[in-house]
């Protein structure tokens, strides 16, 4: 193809609509245009929707870039970022940017999005007032959150709620002012809006509804709001999120027909046939836009037209709404309520579970759905609405969801998505309009195996991300592999370990009850699998705050000794680094005699085990051992067990460093810590490795030059040799790096997952990124470990032998003779 014959396409607006159109043009007519893009923001195209997740700390800016700079280069696109277009000359067919750059076009595409709506309030121009639209706004809010100031958000719609929640998550006290009586009134009915407000209030947001803002207080910067009724709300950050209006500046510059937005026809052309417009800046058939689903449709049609198609025509698809606040499930589509006598409402409530559903039916068809609490069936209802299907048959069961209505049986409660029974044309990704059939086709034809690949090929789940679980379920269903779908923690929940751990942090859940409630547990008390796991996750998340729940620990950790097959216990005192003294040995011998302990054995972990102790003797046995300076060896704990050492440079003719001394330091630093599973360390004095460091969770092998640190080994059921992490030169570094790894494992490991499978699951690259590549992250992990240890290093034996903790555990309730 001859470059000279190419036409020039200039795009104003480097945002979601503009770049999606360019992607579609490249797919249809890769060589038709020389493309130049002007963007006012100093960034490549990013996923604006995800700014909410960035604000809430769930994603970083890097994670939300859609088209990196390399994409522009690879596709021969000339990109001018941070350089807004300021003038258009339609006669000369040129655009001029703020920098003075002037570029000629054959076709011009306007994709300038919208501007935040700013009410005419006094004080709105003060520093400290921001909108929520782009990266710059997000940065301002994050800066304010870092200073832990107070925030007030004006606007109780989708954007305002997501802003308020994000700021709250960042630790700010947040108030929200809303003009209407209920939240999200354009997407939710009164009842769902009320439930939403109740749940968000429980999470610590303060609401002022039916509240009109009169002015922003402050002389030199924002100091809060004054409401029309005279109330004042002090705040250092004011976020305005009351709506958007199309950015029509470029339409004016080009003298186009404009109403609320730049007017376009079904072909996405403006009143000037060489100028097209897409996205939030346009108005089509009296409608303006604020969600990406219709915009992707516009991008398709516009690209087809730019590629020479004469027929492609745009029609606005049915729209549905979801709120992106982790743990709060809201869905709505179509009509929110009956409008006249021909409409019927069907309502379902389960107050105890916080579930609410309303369907609006008209002439045997579903025309609206509002859901709160459990939205698993949202996609199915949305399909019924869009398809205008006749629902007379299933009318009576419809409200109970897909599983119930289609099988008509009493099963009712159906967990998750039933991929097998989904119709091929049922829509999975609302943002991108991708059906189940399209995903299945891409997976089978292209042999896709990962979520990322499916995303790349179909765009399903690539925008707001809410349908990710559904896409994952389809992938697992088609490939038969369950690899990507996280396994549920236990039968009491459908959530996997990671989800639960994140929710505990994100929603600041601090008790087992609140976790079970927030995540919709199916059982009241949980079970023997999830209780110890949740107890650990809470303990790890909130050191010093969460109070250990003994009734959720296995007997070994409750009695701080190991139960044996005959109901007696074994007691192992700590022997720091495997080193003992005659006095300690004497105390052990005395205890064995005094309490008739039948068996004394040297363990595989370099210490001594007293086996066959009666439960009621435990406190007294501990008391005697404590007196000799011995503390619990945690031989029973999902925690630090042993640090095995060899004699090292102190005695051995090959020893290069003081491996025994270093082992003792490590054990004194780490003992008492609770971990997802047991943790064992070893320090060997030279590469002969007599302490078997290469099959430990953390191993140190001393060399002349310093210390080799290895991790993720296991000598148990499935032997795994460690991976090398790094080479260090001082003992202080060893303590820091080992603690950092320990903490990373504590924070990311699944309960009952040893470091060996953990390392295999997350990969060494991930661990290196946290511990080696980023000094600040490592130091932060180290600091968190030390902080947590400040609450952990109380000898449980002492607490029980003399402190009276849990006394009932060791005495019968009654003796009936």
């Amino acid at each position, binding site marked *: 193809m001859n470059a000279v014959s190419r036409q020039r396409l200039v795009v104003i607006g480097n945002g979601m609509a503009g770049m999606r159109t360019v992607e579609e043009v490249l797919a249809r007519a890769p060589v038709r245009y020389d493309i130049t893009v002007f963007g006012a923001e100093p960034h490549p195209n990013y996923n604006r929707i995800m700014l909410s997740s960035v604000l809430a700390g769930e994603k970083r800016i890097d994670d939300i870039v859609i088209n990196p700079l390399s994409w522009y280069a690879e596709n021969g696109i000339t990109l001018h970022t941070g350089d807004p277009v300021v003038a258009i000359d339609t006669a000369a067919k040129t655009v001029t940017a703020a920098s003075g750059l002037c570029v000629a076009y054959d076709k011009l595409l306007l994709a300038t999005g919208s501007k935040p709506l700013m009410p005419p309030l006094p004080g709105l121009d003060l520093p400290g007032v921001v909108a929520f639209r782009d990266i710059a706004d997000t940065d301002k809010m994050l800066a304010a959150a870092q200073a832990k100031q107070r925030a007030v958000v004006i606007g109780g719609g989708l954007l305002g709620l997501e802003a308020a929640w994000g700021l709250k998550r960042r630790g700010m006290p947040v108030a929200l002012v809303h003009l209407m009586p209920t939240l999200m009134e354009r997407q939710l009915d009164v009842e769902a809006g009320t439930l939403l407000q109740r749940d968000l209030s429980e999470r610590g947001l303060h609401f002022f509804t039916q509240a009109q803002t009169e002015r922003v207080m402050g002389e030199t910067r924002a100091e809060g709001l004054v409401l029309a009724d005279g109330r004042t709300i002090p705040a250092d950050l004011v976020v305005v999120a009351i709506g958007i209006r199309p950015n029509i500046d470029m339409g004016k510059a080009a003298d186009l027909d404009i109403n609320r937005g730049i007017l376009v026809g079904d072909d996405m052309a403006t009143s000037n046939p060489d100028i097209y417009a897409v996205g939030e800046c346009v108005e089509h058939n009296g409608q303006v836009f604020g969600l990406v689903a219709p915009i992707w449709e516009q991008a398709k049609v516009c690209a087809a037209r730019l590629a020479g198609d004469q027929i492609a025509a745009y029609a606005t698809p049915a729209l549905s709404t979801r709120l992106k606040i982790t743990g709060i499930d809201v869905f709505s589509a179509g009509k929110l309520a009956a409008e006249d006598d021909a409409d019927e409402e069907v309502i379902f409530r389960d107050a105890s579970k916080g579930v609410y559903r309303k369907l609006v039916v008209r002439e045997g068809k579903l025309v609206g759905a509002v859901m709160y609490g459990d939205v698993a069936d949202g996609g199915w209802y949305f399909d019924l609405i869009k398809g205008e299907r006749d629902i007379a048959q299933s009318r009576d069961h419809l409200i109970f969801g897909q599983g119930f209505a289609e099988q008509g049986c009493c099963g009712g409660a159906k967990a998750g998505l039933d991929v097998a029974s989904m119709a091929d044309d049922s829509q999975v990704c609302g943002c991108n309009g991708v059906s189940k059939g399209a995903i299945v086709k891409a997976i089978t034809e292209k042999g896709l195996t990962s979520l990322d690949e499916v995303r790349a090929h179909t765009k399903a789940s690539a925008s707001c991300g809410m349908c990710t679980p559904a896409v994952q379920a389809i992938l697992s269903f088609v490939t038969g592999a369950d690899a990507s779908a996280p396994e549920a923690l236990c039968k009491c929940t459908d959530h996997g370990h990671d989800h639960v751990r994140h929710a505990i942090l994100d929603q600041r859940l601090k008790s087992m009850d609140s976790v079970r409630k927030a995540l919709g547990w199916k059982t009241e*008390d949980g079970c023997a699998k999830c209780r110890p796991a949740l107890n650990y996750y809470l303990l790890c998340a909130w050191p010093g705050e969460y109070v250990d729940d003994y009734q959720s620990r296995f007997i070994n950790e409750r009695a701080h000794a190991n139960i044996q097959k005959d109901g007696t216990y074994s007691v192992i005192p700590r022997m720091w680094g495997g080193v003992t003294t005659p006095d300690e040995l004497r105390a052990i011998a005395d205890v064995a005699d005094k309490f008739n302990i039948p068996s004394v054995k040297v363990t595989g972990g370099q210490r001594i085990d007293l086996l066959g102790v009666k439960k009621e003797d435990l406190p007294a046995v501990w008391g005697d051992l404590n007196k000799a300076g011995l503390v619990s060896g945690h031989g029973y704990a999902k925690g630090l067990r042993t640090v095995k050492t060899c004699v090292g440079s102190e005695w051995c003719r090959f020893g290069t460093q003081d491996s025994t001394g270093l082992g003792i330091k490590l054990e004194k630093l780490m003992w008492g810590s609770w971990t997802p599973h047991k943790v064992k360390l070893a320090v060997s004095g030279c590469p002969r490795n007599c302490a078997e460091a290469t099959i430990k969770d953390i191993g140190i092998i001393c060399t002349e030059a310093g210390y080799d640190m290895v991790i993720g080994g296991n000598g148990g059921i499935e032997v795994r040799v460690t991976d090398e992490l790094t080479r260090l030169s001082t003992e202080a570094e060893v303590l820091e790096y080992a603690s950092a790894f320990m903490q990373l494992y504590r924070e990311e490991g699944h309960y009952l997952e040893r470091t060996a499978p953990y390392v295999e699951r997350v990969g060494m690259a991930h661990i290196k990124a946290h511990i080696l590549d980023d000094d600040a992250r490592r130091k932060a992990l180290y600091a968190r470990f030390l902080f947590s240890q400040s609450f952990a290093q109380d000898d449980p034996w002492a607490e029980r032998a003399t402190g009276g903790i849990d006394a*009932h555990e060791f005495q019968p*309730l009654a003796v009936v003779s």
Partner: protein
Amino acid sequence: MMDWIDIGTIADIPRLGARTVETHVGQVAVFRTGDDEVFALINKCPHKNGPLSEGIVMGRKVACPLHNWVIDLNDGTALAPDEGCTTTLPLRDEGGRLLLGLTPAKKVAHG
């Protein structure tokens, strides 16, 4: 005839936990559920006599500490697929006192 023996109050038992009572019929485990129901069972798992009092209590069930069989506190039966049954004993809450129902030991022999 049944003797009703006062063994203490519900507050003596940790919620979602158990205490033991020594009796002439053997060690009895007295459980307290999350919603303060109480149950008494012989403290032996039908599997290999594991001490049920040391298990994790959930709903009206307890998981044995030795090999994780789940026993129904109501009737002492093991949850499928496991099979077996532990003897239950009657227990009454009377004005805050817990009364354990025991058939009297056969003192008659000494008669």
